């Protein structure tokens, strides 16, 4: 209300012999009545917009994809982000099923979520865009998005990659370029970096430890049929710890994000580092543009074995409203569409879907979309067999 109209209303009220207090009371009653009449319409308007709450990797929060979906479905997308699978799992265990409708997870993690009742099955009929999956990421080649081979679908593929080693070819000798040993080799001391994620550091050292001990093909703990670097024997874990302690003296740092690693690799301060191939792509593009004078390579699968991942969308068990469930499926199907997956590829992550025809050949090569078969030999990201035991090992490494 403007000042003038307020004043004139007061003066009219005085003339009519109405006190200020009674006028205020009347105004309040009027406002309350208006609100009562308007309330059902307000509620309807709010109900029309369903809010989908997602716990996802930050890279996948792509504005164009979100805006398209929100406009098409009159829905609202509310993302929250995490930095590692354990962190997301931990959040969902600590009441996150009530806070999130969708959650992303890698490798074996969806089965762990399902086992603990944190997610619910997904309806394949509502996900027609799954038809565009690369065969290497669909059953029978890849079964981890079903509770068991031939079981119910518990997630929808998103992207894939390895936790391979990117190396500067000017400094890493040809004979060393196929082994995890690079990351523990004293001759590269002071020019190595690793990520800050404790699980992948221990798992990678675990692969080398088991290779050195000759236990890869031996009896496995936790009822595993084959070697899993996330389920190590005590002997392997101890050797992995020794390797990691030795490695500390060779490291420049444990990087926190891609940009930090790029700042170290681009000027040639760091020669080798495990990463999700993002820096490999950036540096390759920089080399092709003549911005740097050295070439890089990305070791997808070291001879001892490597780590890989397929990340995926899961539906929280806390989402029970049928309309919300349907809308979550619509979001996932929208996200895995060719248009959206092409956008994902353009930000530098390799989709599980065949969008090669929408990308230039050099991008297809950089995103390793012609090497999808190599995923089959990689050890998928998993939960440590005992988070408590792994925490002690990591703390001992950090304190050493």
């Amino acid at each position, binding site marked *: 209300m403007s000042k003038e109209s307020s004043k004139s209303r007061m003066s009219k009220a005085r003339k009519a012999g109405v006190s200020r207090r009674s006028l205020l009371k009347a105004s309040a009653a009027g406002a309350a009545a208006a609100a009562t009449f308007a309330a059902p319409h307000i509620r309807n308007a709010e109900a029309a917009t369903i809010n989908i709450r997602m716990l996802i990797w930050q890279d996948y929060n792509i504005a164009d994809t979100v805006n398209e979906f929100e406009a098409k479905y009159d829905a609202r997308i509310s993302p929250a982000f995490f930095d590692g699978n*354990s962190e997301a*799992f931990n959040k969902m265990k600590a009441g996150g099923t009530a806070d999130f409708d969708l959650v992303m997870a890698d490798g074996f993690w969806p089965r762990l979520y399902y086992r603990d009742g944190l997610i619910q099955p997904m309806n394949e009929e509502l996900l027609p865009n799954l038809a565009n999956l690369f065969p290497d990421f669909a059953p029978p080649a890849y079964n981890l998005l079903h509770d068991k081979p031939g079981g119910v679908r518990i997630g929808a593929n998103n992207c894939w990659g390895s936790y391979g080693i990117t190396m500067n070819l000017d400094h890493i000798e040809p004979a060393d370029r196929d082994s995890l040993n690079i990351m523990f080799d004293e001759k590269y001391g002071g020019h190595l970096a690793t990520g800050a994620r*404790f699980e992948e550091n221990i798992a990678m050292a675990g692969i080398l430890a088991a290779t050195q001990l000759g236990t890869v093909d031996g009896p496995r703990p936790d009822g595993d049929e084959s070697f899993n670097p996330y389920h190590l024997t005590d002997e392997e874990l101890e050797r992995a710890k020794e390797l990691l302690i030795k490695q500390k003296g060779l490291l420049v740092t*444990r990087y926190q994000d891609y940009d930090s690693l790029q700042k170290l690799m681009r*000027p040639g301060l760091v020669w080798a580092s495990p990463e999700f191939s993002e820096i490999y792509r950036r540096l390759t593009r920089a080399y092709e543009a003549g911005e740097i004078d050295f070439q890089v390579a990305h070791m997808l699968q070291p001879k001892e074995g490597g780590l890989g991942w397929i990340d995926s969308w899961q539906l929280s068990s806390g989402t029970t409203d049928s309309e919300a469930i349907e809308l979550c499926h619509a979001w996932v199907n929208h996200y895995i569409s060719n248009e959206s997956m092409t956008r994902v590829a353009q930000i530098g992550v390799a989709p599980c879907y065949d969008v090669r025809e929408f990308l230039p050949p050099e991008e297809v090569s950089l995103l390793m979309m012609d090497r999808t078969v190599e995923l089959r030999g990689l050890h998928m990201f998993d939960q440590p067999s005992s988070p408590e035991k*792994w925490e002690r090992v990591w703390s001992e490494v950090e304190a050493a």
Partner: protein
Amino acid sequence: MARRRLGPEGRFLLMALPGAIFVVVFLLLPILSIIVFSFWRTESYTLIPDWNLDNYATLFGTTTYMTFLLRSFTMAVAVSLASLVYAWPVAYFIAKHGDRYRLLLILALAAPFFTGIILRVTGIQGVMGPVGVINLGLMNYGLQPIEFIMYTQTAVGIGVTYLFIPFMVTAVYLSLLNFDFELLEVAKINGAKPWRAFIEITWPLNWMGTVIGLVLVFIPSMAESITPRFLGGPNAASFGQVLGLQFGETGTWALGSAMGVLLFAVSSLVILLMWRTVNLQRSGFTGGGS
């Protein structure tokens, strides 16, 4: 209808209530919960109310966590002393010579707080990092980069000092605002050298402000986790950083709670020891009731 007026006791309770609710909800209850959790155990990201002392045995039974504690304690002491040495002349200058620009100068010191901590730490990285201003400058002139300011404990120390110096300056400055600089003139007339006047008059009469500054810098430095993550190398993991890991990636909440209790106990002990050095009468304290 006649209104009942609140008596003095009622008014006192009404005014004290918001503060009391704040302390109970945001201080006592969280502390109580971490004390309880510290006697439980965690298994595969699940807290299990199985009362035991294992977490404390883990903390005190190995050198691992004591190493982190000692590392953080040493860092917090060094940072507090560095802040003290740096802050006193700054605060003294502003209080004595700042005149009408005092407030502006203090606000200028608080300017870094207008941004988030990660941005400030990243900014420091842009100065001290391997491709930061200092090292790039040196390398441009064909000189070797300074290694001890890149991903080391020293880098963390510089970063944490930069973050918390404004606390120290503000505390000392507020103390000096109430200090009567005429006392120094009297000392001078009586033959005291400036240094002796400082030691015998300025320093003790402002000790309370200094102690508050020391506590304000020491406590957050002790718990600091962001700066070591960004500026520290593989040998700089702090107690706060490892504590954060327990509630995040490793999900070992019970051990994290025990670490939290230990951190709280050490911090409280430091506050207590510092407080015992304060002579209220000497510092000119006039509060405390009748």
